[in-house]
């Protein structure tokens, strides 16, 4: 895989042409290259979250480089290499974020094949792209950083389209099926191996209403993960398997006007987990409300409140919920450079990884804590 990535980068460099040179008109089929580099820092007043944050962590880095080559006015190919480091995740291991052939037959029907981004809610398919977000950390009840290792793109096909509806506005839709190639890092004393995703299917429809700036959407995603697992503290126990069948649904609502942005999303999911020890049903909920205002074109302020219930059967203890109230400012220093500063007040520990906290159980971690994040990104 490494030689393949190197070859791709070399090909991009060799074949790249300057889009607009010597006063000539641009070549419509010229290769386009874009990239970004992000560096952030995280600090918590208690509990290690996403990284070793109690003493501050700079393990919050992302880098991406992509190219798109239009073959003609309907057909294009493209790929994006992406690497990140976030605490124990990533460790700068480069992977193809997306790699696809795109045939845009009509506006109401196109097809993408390869490794294709998964549309789910407003942000899942752009969660890697700091420049596209108002905040440094998206609401973790719906867009958890840890899921970015495997849930942002699938390998398969996607049908997509856009259809004006006259006086009723327009609708944008995407449906897809395929598989995930994923690794799950050891977490909470459990090691996973032989991970397979035999099927994955989903879709998103986004309705642009006749009211300027108002859109509403619905997303669904279902799939199965099969794996072997073992407890790191008890390696003598072998032969344990897990089959996880999960379906997720999300409703999305947005209103944007005159520099204001209001968003709300609600996620609910059902997981049917069959292990060597038995069968478990889990229902989970996540939701957030966000309000943002562009004070100036270069200054955006955002507030959001996010709430996670990973198991609706029990929401009472601190380890069964996580409330997150966040305030963020984004500075667009220039057209290619942004800086974000934000503060979070959190209550509950449901999304904390115990292994980052010396194995301390979630219910024994600090219930009320604060998180500060800073992130700067250069993109072109």
């Amino acid at each position, binding site marked *: 895989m490494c030689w393949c990535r190197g070859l791709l980068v070399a090909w991009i460099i060799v074949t790249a042409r300057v889009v607009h040179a010597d006063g000539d008109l641009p070549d419509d089929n010229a290769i386009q290259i874009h990239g970004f580099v992000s560096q952030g820092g995280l600090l918590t007043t208690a509990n290690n979250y996403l990284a070793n944050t109690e003493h501050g962590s700079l393990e919050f880095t992302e880098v991406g480089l992509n190219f798109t080559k239009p073959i003609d006015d309907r057909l294009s190919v493209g790929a994006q290499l992406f690497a990140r480091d976030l605490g124990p995740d990533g460790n700068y291991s480069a992977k193809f974020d997306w790699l696809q052939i795109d045939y845009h037959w009509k506006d109401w029907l196109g097809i993408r094949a390869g490794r294709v981004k998964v549309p789910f809610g407003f942000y899942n398919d752009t969660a890697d792209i700091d420049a596209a977000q108002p905040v440094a950390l998206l609401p973790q009840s719906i867009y958890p950083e840890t899921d970015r290792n495997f849930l942002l793109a699938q390998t398969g096909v996607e049908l997509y389209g856009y259809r004006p509806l006259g006086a009723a506005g327009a609708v944008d839709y995407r449906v897809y099926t395929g598989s995930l190639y994923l690794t799950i890092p050891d977490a909470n004393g459990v090691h996973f191996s032989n991970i397979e995703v035999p099927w994955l299917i989903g879709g998103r429809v986004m309705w642009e209403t006749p009211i300027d700036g108002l859109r509403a959407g619905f997303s669904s995603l279902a799939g199965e993960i099969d794996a072997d697992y073992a407890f790191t503290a008890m390696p003598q126990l072998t032969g344990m398997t897990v089959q996880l069948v999960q379906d997720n649904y999300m409703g999305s609502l947005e209103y944007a006007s005159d520099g204001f942005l209001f968003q709300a999303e609600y996620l609910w999911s059902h997981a049917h987990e069959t292990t060597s020890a038995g069968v478990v049903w889990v229902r989970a909920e996540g939701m957030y409300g966000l309000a943002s205002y562009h004070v100036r074109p270069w200054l955006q302020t955002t507030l959001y409140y996010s709430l996670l219930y990973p198991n609706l059967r029990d929401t009472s203890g601190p380890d069964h919920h996580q409330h997150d109230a966040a305030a963020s400012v984004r500075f667009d220093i220039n057209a290619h450079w942004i800086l974000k500063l934000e503060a979070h007040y959190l209550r509950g520990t449901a999304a904390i990884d115990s292994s980052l906290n010396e194995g301390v159980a979630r219910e024994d971690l600090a219930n009320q804590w604060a998180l500060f994040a800073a992130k700067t990104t250069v*993109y072109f």
Partner: protein
Amino acid sequence: MGAVRGEDDGVLLMRRWLIALALVMATVASADPGGVRIIVNPKNGARTIERRTIEEAFLKKRTRWDDDTAILPVDLTQKSSVRERFSHDMLGRDIAAVRRYWAQVVFSGRGVAPPELATEAEVVKYVASHAGAIGYVSSGIDVAGVKVIEVNR
């Protein structure tokens, strides 16, 4: 006398209505919205265009003209005041918001942004040489070789 005065009042009222109607028509269909003119290639059969169609074309949600020719939108650079006016009037958002939109599209593999040209003369040249092109220029620019179309709001 009263009848004549009544006729005068009627003519006056009619004139006022005609002026008001003309003003409304001028804002509903205009070849020069906010001092920015929309230009297309002379081969393009369209005489008017909906504002929403312009928005869809420049955000590449709509990619084909009615005759199936590919729509080729062309932008000015982000520092251009003409682009600022165009973005505000036609796309309903400022340039920073458009830039964020394209960051989402470009980095998620859903497309590429329109080319950005440095001068309005280059925009005219581009539109004149591409059958499906659509661009915008300010009022004082020589538009020989392209067609100015009216915008229906």
